[in-house]
C-alpha cells in the first residue's frame, strides 16, 4: 500500500533573473513500511519535497497525499501522524533535553503525564540520560541531533521524515544515528529521508530516488542504481602525466565505458564490474607498459559518479549553480 504519494509537485520562487523552479514536476510514491531515500546535491529540491510533505510549505502546483490525507487541504490532520526532523537540530537551547521532548509531547496533546513518561523513555532509549537534565546549549552537535530525532519520535509516528539526518556529524555519531534509524524502521515505521551521501542511502534505504533540478531522474534499489553506474571504480595515480593517455587506454580495456582522466592528468579512473579482478589486470598491463604509479586502488561509487552518469555533470557543479540561483531567488 502506498502511504506517501506526490504527483507533479512544482514549487517556483520568483527572482530577479526570472522564476526558479525548486521543484519541477516531481512524482514520488512510498509504500507503507519501507524506507525511501531522496538522493541529490544541495539545491536539487530534496528539502523542498520534505517541506511540502510535512506541511511546511505549499507547492505552486501538484498534489500530495500522506496516509490518505490531502496534505494541502488538511495539514493539521497530517501533523497528528507524522514526525519530522530537519537539517538543523530544531531544539530549544535553553530547555533541557527532557524539557524539549516533554514540550513536543504536550504539543502533540499527549497529556502532561504521558508526555513526561514518553520524554523519559526517549532519553533512556537515546542514551541521553546524563544530558537529559542540562540545557541543550552545552551539548555537542551529535547530541543535539539525537534530541531532535527523539523529538520526531515522540508519538511513534506512522511516517517519519528526516531531512539530511547526518549532515555535519562526525563518522562515529553518524554510525550511531544510522543504528537508531535502522531499529526504528525494523518496527515498521515508514521513512522518507534525504541525503547527499550515496553510502547513507545505500545503508538505510530500500529504495532510492535520485533528484536533480527538482525532478526524480532515476529510481530503484541501490543495486539497480549501481548496476546502472557500474560497481567499483579502479583508480590509479600516475608518476608522469605524460603517460595519462596510455594509462586511460589500459583502464578502458578492463572497465565499463570510458576511463576518466583528472584535470591535472595525474589520476585516471574507470568503472568496473568485478573490482578486484579488474584491478589485477589493470596493474599487470600497466606494469607491462612500464607506466609508473604513485598509487592504485578501488573505490566505491559516490554521488558524483551517479550524477556524472545520469546527468553528464558532477553533483558539485550542480550544487554551485543551484545554490547561486536559490540565493538570488530569496
Amino acid at each position, binding site marked *: 500500500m502506498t502511504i506517501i504519494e506526490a504527483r507533479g509537485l512544482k514549487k517556483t520562487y520568483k527572482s530577479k533573473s526570472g522564476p526558479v523552479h525548486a521543484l519541477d514536476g516531481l512524482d514520488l510514491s512510498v509504500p507503507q513500511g519501507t524506507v525511501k531515500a531522496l538522493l541529490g546535491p544541495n539545491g536539487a529540491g530534496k528539502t523542498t519535497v520534505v517541506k511540502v510533505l510535512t*506541511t511546511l510549505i*505549499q507547492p505552486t502546483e501538484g498534489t500530495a497525499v500522506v496516509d490518505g490525507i490531502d496534505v494541502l487541504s488538511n495539514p493539521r490532520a497530517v501533523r497528528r501522524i507524522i514526525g519530522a526532523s*530537519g*537539517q538543523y537540530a530544531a*531544539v530549544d537551547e*535553553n530547555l533541557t533535553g527532557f524539557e524539549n521532548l516533554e*514540550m513536543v509531547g504536550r504539543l502533540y*496533546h499527549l497529556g502532561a503525564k504521558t508526555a513526561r513518561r*514518553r520524554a523519559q523513555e526517549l532519553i533512556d532509549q537515546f542514551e541521553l540520560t546524563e544530558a537529559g537534565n542540562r540545557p541543550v546549549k552545552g551539548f555537542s552537535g551529535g547530541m543535539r541531533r539525537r534530541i531532535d530525532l527523539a523529538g520526531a519520535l515522540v508519538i511513534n509516528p506512522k511516517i517519519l521524515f528526516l531531512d539530511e539526518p547526518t549532515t555535519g556529524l562526525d563518522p562515529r555519531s553518524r554510525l550511531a544515528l544510522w543504528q537508531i534509524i535502522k531499529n526504528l524502521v525494523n518496527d515498521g515505521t515508514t521513512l522518507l529521508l534525504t541525503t547527499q551521501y550515496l553510502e547513507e542511502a545505500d545503508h538505510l534505504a530500500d529504495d532510492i530516488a535520485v533528484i536533480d533540478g527538482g525532478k526524480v531522474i532515476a529510481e530503484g534499489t541501490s543495486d539497480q542504481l549501481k548496476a546502472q553506474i557500474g560497481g567499483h571504480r579502479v583508480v590509479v595515480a600516475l608518476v608522469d602525466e605524460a603517460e595519462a593517455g596510455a594509462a586511460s587506454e589500459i583502464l578502458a580495456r578492463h572497465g565499463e565505458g570510458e576511463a576518466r582522466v583528472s584535470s591535472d592528468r595525474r589520476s585516471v579512473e574507470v568503472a568496473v564490474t568485478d573490482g578486484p579482478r579488474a584491478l589485477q589486470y589493470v596493474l599487470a598491463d600497466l606494469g607491462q607498459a612500464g607506466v609508473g604509479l604513485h598509487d592504485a586502488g578501488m573505490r566505491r561509487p559516490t554521488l558524483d559518479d551517479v550524477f556524472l552518469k545520469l546527468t553528464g555533470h558532477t553533483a558539485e557543479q550542480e550544487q554551485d549553480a543551484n545554490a547561486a540561483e536559490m540565493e538570488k531567488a530569496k
Partner: protein
Amino acid sequence: MSVLTKQTYQSVGTPAGQLLSDGWIATRRNLIKIKRVPEILVFTILQPIMFVLLFSQVYGGAMNVSDYTNFLMAGIFAQTVIFGSTFSGAAMAQDLKDGIIDRFRTLPMSPAAVLIGRTNGDLVINSISMLIMMGTGWIVGWRVTTSVWGFLGGVAILLLFSYSFSWVMALLGMSVRSPEVINNASFMILFPLTFISNAFVPIHTMPEVLKNIAEWNPVSALVESARQLFGNTNPDFPGPTAWTLQNPFITIFLGIALMLVIFVPLCIKKFESISSR
C-alpha cells in the same frame, strides 16, 4: 515497552481549550528562558534603573520646572515597556533561524500558540521592569497622587499597550532575515517613536512639524493617559491642544484595539507560512 497507546494520539479538548493549553506550554518555554539566561534578567532590571536615574537626575535640574520627576516617570515607563516589546521580534527571528519554528509547525498545535507564548514572555519581562522602575522612581521622589485604582489603571494601560505592540514586533521578527536586523531596525523605529512624543518633554516647545507628529503619536496618548491616572500632570506646562491628547483614553484604547485587530491575524497568517531557510 512504550507508554503510548492508541488513545494518546487523539487530540484533546475544544479548539479554545487547546489554544489555552498550547499557549501556556509555549509561554512556559519563554519563562524558562528568562530564568536560564541571566543576561535577560540583568538587562530587565538594570536598564530601567539606569533610565530612571539618568533622566531624573541629568535632565531634572536642566528642565527648570518643579516636579520634573513626577512628570518624567510615565514617559520612562512607556519607553521601557515599548523597548521591552522588541524581545518578541528578536526571539521570533532567532527561532526562525534556529529551525525550531519548523518543529512547531509540523506539530498539531494551535498556530497562534507560539506567538501567544512569545508575547506573554514580553509581558512578564515588562511587568518585572515596571516593578523595578516604580521602586526606583519612588526612591527618587515619584509619587502617585490619585488613588490605588489610578495607580493600577496606569500600570495596566502601559502593559496592555506594550503587549499589543509585541505583536507588531513579532510580525517584524518573522519578516526579517536575521535577529541582528531586528535589533537595528527596532532602534530606528523606537527612538523616534518614543522621543518625538510627550514622554520626556512637553510638546508645546517642539517645532510645528514635530509637534504635529507628537500629537498623533500613540506613545503621547499612552503617556498622557498614564500621567492622568497617576496624577502626574504638570501644572507648569500648558494642557494639550490636540483632540488626541485631550481624549487620551479614547485614543489609546483605539490604538491598542487597532494594533491587536490588525496584527494578531497578520501574525498568525505569517506564522502559518514561514519556514527556516
